[in-house]
């Protein structure tokens, strides 16, 4: 056990039910492809303090929901040369339930794996005649949060076979590479040491089912690639950039490690 003054840890047996009705699976059997690396997979929510955990249990207490509400407006507002809004083709945001859990996903037309943000931009550029949003910037994160929120409670289920297999392999390779002057891989912290304290931080399995995440540390919604960037930087490495092929591959791979956990975004973390 860590010495006194360690941050408050969460109740091991707490369960997450949002707004008293959306049941979130935060602990379940590990997917077969993990080959015994974990007995069970755990959402990052389980590693946060009781206080942080409770903020995610009610949308009124979840600061991330402010961006979700803002994105509802963007969803309905026409943009670009075609004068169309997302709503014109896709109906209500709720009609997109089930989309977030299967991304990143192979896109047949583009011939590459698309993250949710890349898919949104594909619609903006090719169907709306609008400017693309930057990765983890501008409206990307609020819109991703909106699409996540309507899928809350549904199990993460990204495909790793077929045409996505090559990208998945690349992501797996990156996950186990020991980057930087500190020579730490994602696995060094999130596979070998989850549950342990690293200084004041309680290490989770580094799952992505909760993204975008509202972080108390920077009081805004954060994207997956920005989180990856921070983690790679912390190994004293030259990072990859949000939107890079490396982070797209890593996003697919890390998402697949969480297949079976519920979508929770926008989640609350510290």
């Amino acid at each position, binding site marked *: *056990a*860590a*010495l*006194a*003054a*360690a*941050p408050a840890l969460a109740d091991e047996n707490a369960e997450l039910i949002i707004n008293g009705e959306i049941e979130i699976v935060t602990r379940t059997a590990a997917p077969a492809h993990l080959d015994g690396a974990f007995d069970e997979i755990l959402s990052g929510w389980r590693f946060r303090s009781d206080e942080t955990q409770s903020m995610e249990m009610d949308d009124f207490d979840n600061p991330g929901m402010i961006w979700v509400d803002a994105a509802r407006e963007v969803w309905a507002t026409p943009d670009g040369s075609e004068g169309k809004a997302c709503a014109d083709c896709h109906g209500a945001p709720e009609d997109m339930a089930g989309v977030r859990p299967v991304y990143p996903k192979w896109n047949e037309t583009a011939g590459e794996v698309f993250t949710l943000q890349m898919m949104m931009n594909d619609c903006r550029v090719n169907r709306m005649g609008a400017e693309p949003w930057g990765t983890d910037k501008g409206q990307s994160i609020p819109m991703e949060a909106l699409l996540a929120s309507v899928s809350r409670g549904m199990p993460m289920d990204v495909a790793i076979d077929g045409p996505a297999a090559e990208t998945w392999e690349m992501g797996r390779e990156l996950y186990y*590479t*020991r*980057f*930087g*002057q*500190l*020579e*730490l891989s994602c696995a*060094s912290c999130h596979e*070998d*040491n989850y549950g*342990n*304290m*690293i*200084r*004041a931080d309680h290490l989770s399995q580094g799952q992505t089912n909760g993204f975008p995440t509202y972080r108390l540390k920077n009081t805004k919604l954060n994207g997956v690639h920005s989180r990856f*960037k921070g983690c*790679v*930087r*912390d*190994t*004293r*490495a*030259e*990072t990859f950039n949000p939107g890079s092929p490396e982070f797209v591959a890593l996003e697919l791979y890390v998402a697949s490690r969480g297949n079976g956990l519920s979508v929770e975004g926008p989640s609350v973390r510290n």
Partner: protein
Amino acid sequence: MKRRVFTLVLWVAGLGVAHADTVAPGDVVWQDGTIPQSLTGVAGDPAEGAKVLSSKSIGNCIACHEVTALADVPFHGEVGPLLDGAGDRWTEAELRAILVNSKEVFPDSVMPSFYRVDGFIRPGKAYTGKAADDTFGPLLTAQQIEDAVAFLMTLD
């Protein structure tokens, strides 16, 4: 070469000069997986070593290790073993080796190598996320290694 650095160090130390020539990371002399020779010839200062272990901006060893003697510094990690008694378990030459290049002592360890400058994948410029440039150096100075070793030797 090894002998020359050693004699030079003794000679300078003999003159009472505080900063003797230090052994560069590439010139560290290994002997059966240990490093018997001081990297500076200047005796380590345990008080400075305590700072190396606890300060976030220096060694930040307690990010991973719990050390009872440093209990007044908040937040000790659990990634590595408790360091209490390290001075009993290991000789000075062994501790120096663990700090200089942990991987020589514990293959595949997650513990960083604190006095090594090559063999990294995408090394960065400290914690900026940018590529390493010509300011790139070891995580600790030779004297900081000696100070940390001296502190660890007090843990019995």
